[in-house]
């Protein structure tokens, strides 16, 4: 299966649908978030969100899934799908003295861990370490070298909103920070995400 076929819109929609199914399975298992009035979680819980990683030259968008507190409070296991769905022109060395100027889309699947440290009931710090695979797709070319992407490190501030603050019965967390991403260029980025507890 080529990367081009893998990345048709139908399959992207299928991936979104699979994220939703994961969330539904989690709920069907009855593993619930114990929410206090301040929105602080205790015990295993699940969170689903969207994130953006960007700088002046590039934007990556993604969906992210957290399995929070599986081993103890403050730690999460993370799965993420990240995409640059538009074509960005990139200069890639083909051989000595020869370069290719290609329009690149990029798709990545990542897993990792996340640590949260509450400073107050609403504000805290977070740090994530992720790694995985990244697949570039070039228009007009069959080059699609799947590559490892490690590390993806993000740190920053987390603002937790209790149930009822934004949505009727879901706690929400908003994250803003910096990110280091091991790509050819554009390694240093701003990271932001919004997470909803399931």
């Amino acid at each position, binding site marked *: 299966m080529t990367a081009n076929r893998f990345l048709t819109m139908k399959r992207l929609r299928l991936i979104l649908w699979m994220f939703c199914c994961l969330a539904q399975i989690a709920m069907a298992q009855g593993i*619930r978030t114990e929410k206090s009035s301040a929105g602080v979680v205790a015990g295993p819980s699940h969170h689903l969100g969207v994130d953006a990683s960007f700088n002046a030259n590039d934007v990556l968008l993604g969906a992210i899934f957290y399995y929070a507190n599986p081993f103890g409070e403050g730690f999460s296991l993370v799965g993420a799908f990240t995409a640059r769905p538009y074509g960005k022109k990139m200069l890639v060395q083909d051989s000595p*003295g020869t370069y290719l100027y290609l329009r690149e889309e990029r798709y990545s699947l990542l897993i990792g861990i996340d640590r949260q440290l509450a400073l107050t009931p609403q504000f805290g710090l977070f740090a994530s370490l992720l790694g995985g695979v990244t697949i570039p797709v070039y228009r*007009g*070319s069959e080059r699609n070298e799947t590559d490892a992407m490690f590390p993806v490190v993000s740190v920053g501030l987390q603002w937790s909103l209790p149930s009822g603050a934004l949505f009727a019965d879901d706690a929400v967390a908003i994250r803003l920070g910096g990110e280091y991403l091991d790509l050819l260029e554009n390694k240093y980025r701003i990271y932001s995400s919004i997470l909803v507890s*399931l």
Partner: protein
Amino acid sequence: MIKNIVVAYRLRWSVIVCVGIFLNCNDSTNECNRGYKPSLCDETAPATGTVEVRVTLSDMNASVPITIYRGKVEQNVVVFRDTLTVSSKQYLLDNAEYSVRAAYKAFVGGSLVTVYSIEGGTLSADSKEYCDGTCYSKGTLVLDAAYP
């Protein structure tokens, strides 16, 4: 009991949202507000269209050699070659997937190198849906092989 009701309530809504995503929220209404076909309507999709190739001209690259491929560049099915002395040129071609490779001389890291700018896409007929049918016209594919 209350917990089960809450879980069922939220499960129901997430299922609705996900089915909506999966089905891409197709419009299932029977009302048609797209108007009716004009009198001049080509109801057969044309087999050809326009491929527009764009390049960057400069002092170092006053003319830019291009190669048009059917499919991807690596498949090496050359349709034709040309050398452009204008920044944009159009060609009439059969509907298919095409790629272009434009060759430039450039300085990268202080060294004079060759840069191949590659771009691709699919040429297909344009269509417009009306309440009583579909009208077609020749499609246009823009292959922007500019550098930088």
